[in-house]
């Protein structure tokens, strides 16, 4: 149960964080200038947007959940299971960013889920 909650945080909060950061980045606009000064300005600008803060908070939650689960589970179990974020990413992108997911991508995601299920059986 405890690890299910932690995996939920890793997958859902991690993906939610990436989606929020992605949304904030789209708000700031495309980067054309790669001089250090303008990149710094870009970073400062992005932190004025609430989406950025939400994204960083969610990604931190995901990172600390990863650390917590690594304290009692094998790395070769935790990291493959967290590949579920491909499924969460596709659903999130469809729901929140309005992206269309191709049939081939759904097939790939279904195969990832099958692999995660197989790895999950080996958790004992």
């Amino acid at each position, binding site marked *: 149960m405890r690890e299910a909650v932690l995996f939920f945080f890793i997958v859902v909060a991690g993906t939610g964080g990436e989606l929020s950061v992605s949304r904030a980045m789209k708000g700031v606009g495309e980067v054309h200038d790669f001089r250090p000064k303008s990149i710094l300005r870009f970073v400062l600008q992005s932190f004025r947007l609430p989406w950025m803060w939400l994204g960083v908070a969610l990604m931190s939650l995901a990172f600390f959940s990863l*650390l917590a689960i690594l304290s009692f589970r094998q790395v*070769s179990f935790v990291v493959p299971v967290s*590949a579920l974020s491909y499924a969460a990413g596709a659903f999130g992108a469809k729901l929140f960013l309005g992206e*269309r997911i*191709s049939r*081939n*991508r759904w097939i790939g995601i279904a195969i990832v*889920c*099958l692999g995660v299920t197989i*790895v999950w059986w080996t958790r004992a």
Partner: protein
Amino acid sequence: MTLSRVAVRRTASAHEVSNLSGTIVLQVLLFWTTQQRNHVTRTRRLQLKTIPLILISIILGPLGNVFLGKGMKSVGPVTSARILDLLPIASCVLTSGYIWLGIVCLLGFFVVHMLLLTWADYSYVQPATSLSYLSIAILSYLVLGEMISPLRWLGVTVICVGVLLVGRTSPSTSEAPEHA
């Protein structure tokens, strides 16, 4: 004397003309081959820097996770979610060398990934990084001594295939395709 000089001049100019046309043909040939060679060397040069960087990113990212795992195993199992219990654990985590090593590896992975994406297509890089699921299994076996059952190898391989397929689809789907 003069006649022979004229003849010499004429043959010389004829020689020059044939020389000139020969030079033009040669130069066109040379230009064409250099163009071809430039194209080939450009592709090869891109591969020369893309493939090592992909290999580095496939190793660096999983290595970061392996170090995080090693660090957290030394901290001990986190079983409580109460703030008072988490504070001493947090101080252990922040002072663990392996955790910082892991974070440095993950940051390095992030930088390499960003660098790759400045010239390589995402749809080229993403399927290649699906191999990182195999390398995490190999590294956790080698570095941490984790025993990996055949069933887990099968699962990891299936995940690799799935991620590979996800990456092979079009990277931009939010706009209508131009060619149906």
